[in-house]
């Protein structure tokens, strides 16, 4: 026992304490400076699109536009930005509307751990994350062409499959933490299965559903390469318009406007999802 009551292997000399205080202070300021720096780093890329979207003239090497205006918006409108935006919204919503319930059902089954060959099924459902979509699409276009599958159907199918990993993963995590005791309690209080679903089950998983739906929407909203390959230029979504604009030269304001249009809906939706889940936890 004597070994256990020997003095600590460290002394408390004044110098050690002083050094620690200096270190702690340095660490504190380092953390502050680091936070500001990293935040700025992540924000900088937003700056050019905000400036260029409202610049009518901005010759080199001026630091700010010499003439502000909405020329970029007019050009973008003339190029069909608004119908393209509508198409992209539709695509995102369609993918989300299909991939979210699929992911929710699979997630629930997997969370309960009674799926036959559960590990393999999980691996298969998550696999699309690691498979480059362009490779799948290149193979699929030929098959779809031979089978006479309409392009839009093939497009939605590929994007849904690309979104399923996200929805499944989120919903599986949500159901893993979901207490079925609530459903049992509702049953004993006289709620039928429809009421249990609508009044207990869905409200409890609503924040996870919203997050899953948001991610699935993003898959459809952000896609460039699959639409390009399957649509072969006939399906013009917002990213396609942006890609065409950005690969040509000399229309920076239009690029900025299209980029801004492609940024706003996801950020708005993210805010909505965040507010929704935060309000839930506060209650």
């Amino acid at each position: 026992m004597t070994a256990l009551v020997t003095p600590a292997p460290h002394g408390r000399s004044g110098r050690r304490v002083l050094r620690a205080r200096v270190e702690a202070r340095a660490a504190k300021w380092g953390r502050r400076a680091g936070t500001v720096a990293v935040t700025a780093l992540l924000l900088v890329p937003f700056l050019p699109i905000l400036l260029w979207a409202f610049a009518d003239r901005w010759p080199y090497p001026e630091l700010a536009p010499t003439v502000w205006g909405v020329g970029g918006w007019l050009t973008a409108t003339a190029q069909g930005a608004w119908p393209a935006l509508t198409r992209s919204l539709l695509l995102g919503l369609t993918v989300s509307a299909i991939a979210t319930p699929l992911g929710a059902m699979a997630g629930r089954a997997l969370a309960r751990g009674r799926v036959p060959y559960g590990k393999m099924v999980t691996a298969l459902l998550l696999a699309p994350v690691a498979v480059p979509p362009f490779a799948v699409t290149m193979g699929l276009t030929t098959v779809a062409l031979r089978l006479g599958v309409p392009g839009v159907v093939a497009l939605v199918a590929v994007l849904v499959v690309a979104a399923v990993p996200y929805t499944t993963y989120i919903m599986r995590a949500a159901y893993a933490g979901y207490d079925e005791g609530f459903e049992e309690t509702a049953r004993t209080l006289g709620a039928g299965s429809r009421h249990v679903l609508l009044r207990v089950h869905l409200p409890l998983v609503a924040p996870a559903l919203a997050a899953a739906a948001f991610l699935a929407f993003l898959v459809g909203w952000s896609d460039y390469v699959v639409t390009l390959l399957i649509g072969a230029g006939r399906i013009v979504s917002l990213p396609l318009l942006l890609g065409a604009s950005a690969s040509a030269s000399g229309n920076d304001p239009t690029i900025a406007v299209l980029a801004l249009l492609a940024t706003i809906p996801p950020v708005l939706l993210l805010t909505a999802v965040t507010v929704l889940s935060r309000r839930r936890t506060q209650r």
Partner: protein
Amino acid sequence: MNRRTASSRRAALLVLPALLPTVLVLGAGLGAAVIQSLGLLPLVGKPELSSAAYRALVVDDVLTGLGVSVAIAAASTSLALLVGATAAVLVQRSRIGGLAAVAAAVVPIPHLVGAATVGLLLADSGLVARLVGAQPGTFPALVGGPWWVAVVLELAWKESAFVAVVVLSSLATTERDLDEAAAGLGAGPWQRLRRVTLPLAAPALVVSGTISFAYVVGSYEVAWLLGRTYPEPLAVLAFRLFSDTDLTMRPQALAVAVLTVAVAAGALVAGAALLRRVAVLR
């Protein structure tokens, strides 16, 4: 036993609607890619089993493309892991808010938007060139230049936000409790970072790094917009071959696609192996 089979049948039915399209699309897409790359499903001419497409690629700088793809993915993923992990730790430790929200807001931005804005930022007439006051013609070729700087930076920007969000959600609140416990046991700030925070974040870093790497290897639009025309990364090369008016190039295009899938899958296998070594939490 009976009840058991009934419940697993129900579970199987719940999984099927997601599993079926996944298997169909992946199977048909990848299967057709392989078959076409072997010359068995030509758009013109007679089907004939051949490895010609693959042999043609070896000559055709596909190895350079592979090197470029892997290098870009490695560079941007490393940067993303560094910045993302730093951001996550800072969010946990610093009282200044906002960083978590900014990281979360960067994740849903389409990569194409990122490529467009990084182009406006780093091109030779871009915002940075104006800020440093570069004479026309003297600004280094960050966009379309030999070192793929703009490509790597755009990918690192977006993926670092992704890494930060994943690591943050894995650290959550338990890390703060353990950090307090470690402080009480005599561990200073650096010791706590090295011995507590980083080991706890390691599984999330491996997972997000692997996903990010696989994504970058298979991504097209960023390298296409911000990269140079030669040598091409795998996705850009496959796309050019695929859209070639000479339809006999199709098998080669699909051979490149199959190669890309193999690289991404390889990254995934390596990531899974690494995860098994660091994931001790379960």
